[in-house]
């Protein structure tokens, strides 16, 4: 349980940091880049977390990649479809 708390603390830290960096700039291209990097960290974090708990499978890697892809696709949809960036 203690280890879980540590991993979640680390995940929240990555996400909050990503949010704060993106929110600090009005530049949408910079925001998109920050979200992309945060998403890649998220996939990496998922793989490491499951690997340490000895339940990492290819399906889990795909799941984290798809979730990150969904988040990225929504942001792309708004930036390109909405703002024409």
């Amino acid at each position: 349980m203690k280890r879980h708390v540590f991993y979640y603390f680390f995940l929240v830290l990555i996400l909050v940091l990503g949010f704060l960096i993106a929110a600090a700039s009005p530049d949408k291209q910079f925001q998109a880049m920050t979200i992309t990097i945060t998403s890649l960290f998220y996939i990496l974090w998922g793989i490491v977390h499951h690997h340490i708990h000895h339940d990492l499978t290819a399906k889990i890697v795909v799941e984290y990649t798809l979730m990150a892809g969904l988040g990225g696709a929504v942001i792309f949809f708004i930036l390109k479809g909405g703002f024409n960036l």
Partner: protein
Amino acid sequence: MKNFFHDLFFPHFHNNFRSKLLHHRVILLFIVLLFSGTFFLSFVKANFPQVLGISSDVTTEQLLSFTNQKRQEDGAGALSLNDKLNKAASDKAQDMFAENYWAHNSPTGKTPWVFIKNAGYQYVYAGENLARGFTDSKSVVDAWMASPEHRENMLSRNYNEVGFAVKNGTLLGEDTVLVVEMLGNTSFAQNSIPSVARSAQEPVPVVLNSSNRPLIDSVSLSRNIGVGIISLFILVLSVDFIVIERKKVTRFVGHNLDHVLFLSLILLMIFIIARGVIL
């Protein structure tokens, strides 16, 4: 139909104890649809600008009304619209689009005061506030009021006249609605006596003509769809987690909590991306 939705949102024996919406193929389908939707929106914007595009409810009249309301609450005199300041604001907005900059001074060194002087306004005091990406006039004024420097500018007793420009165009690669506010006074202000608004001013046409506005605002549309999709996934992940915890089913899948946290970040980012900015 009932079974279809049950399958989609609740984990049970028939969907392998994982809500169908969280199956890889369904998530992939959403990603493909979002990318297709992006190109569809871009196509409609390019070919049918009267249907889909950047649109906002920001108007000169409302900006003046909300600004004067804030000034009166603060005990300052109302500002009156000035044609020359309107022209200065309009020229500044055009220059920002033409030279593609988001700053008070242009890359070629033009200050706001150059636009005011060129419009023929002989100022003793002058100020400028900028905003972009807002959907209504109240949000613009509220954002300026929330920033100490802009608030000071808006409520300053040194000014008795104002000009606005509301223009849409492409700035720094994004379609946006730009608002320029030019404040001024041609004589030395009497700080203790609030200035009186001159009601005899000619009404100034709103630069963003309503007839040129598209039927649907692309930013609001894409933002609402994005919020809807992310919220749906957060909801289904939460339901999936609760049901599986109750049934004590063992599965080899990713942790729902991880995905909820990540998608919550995306939800927050949508609001950050879609917010207006001031300068």
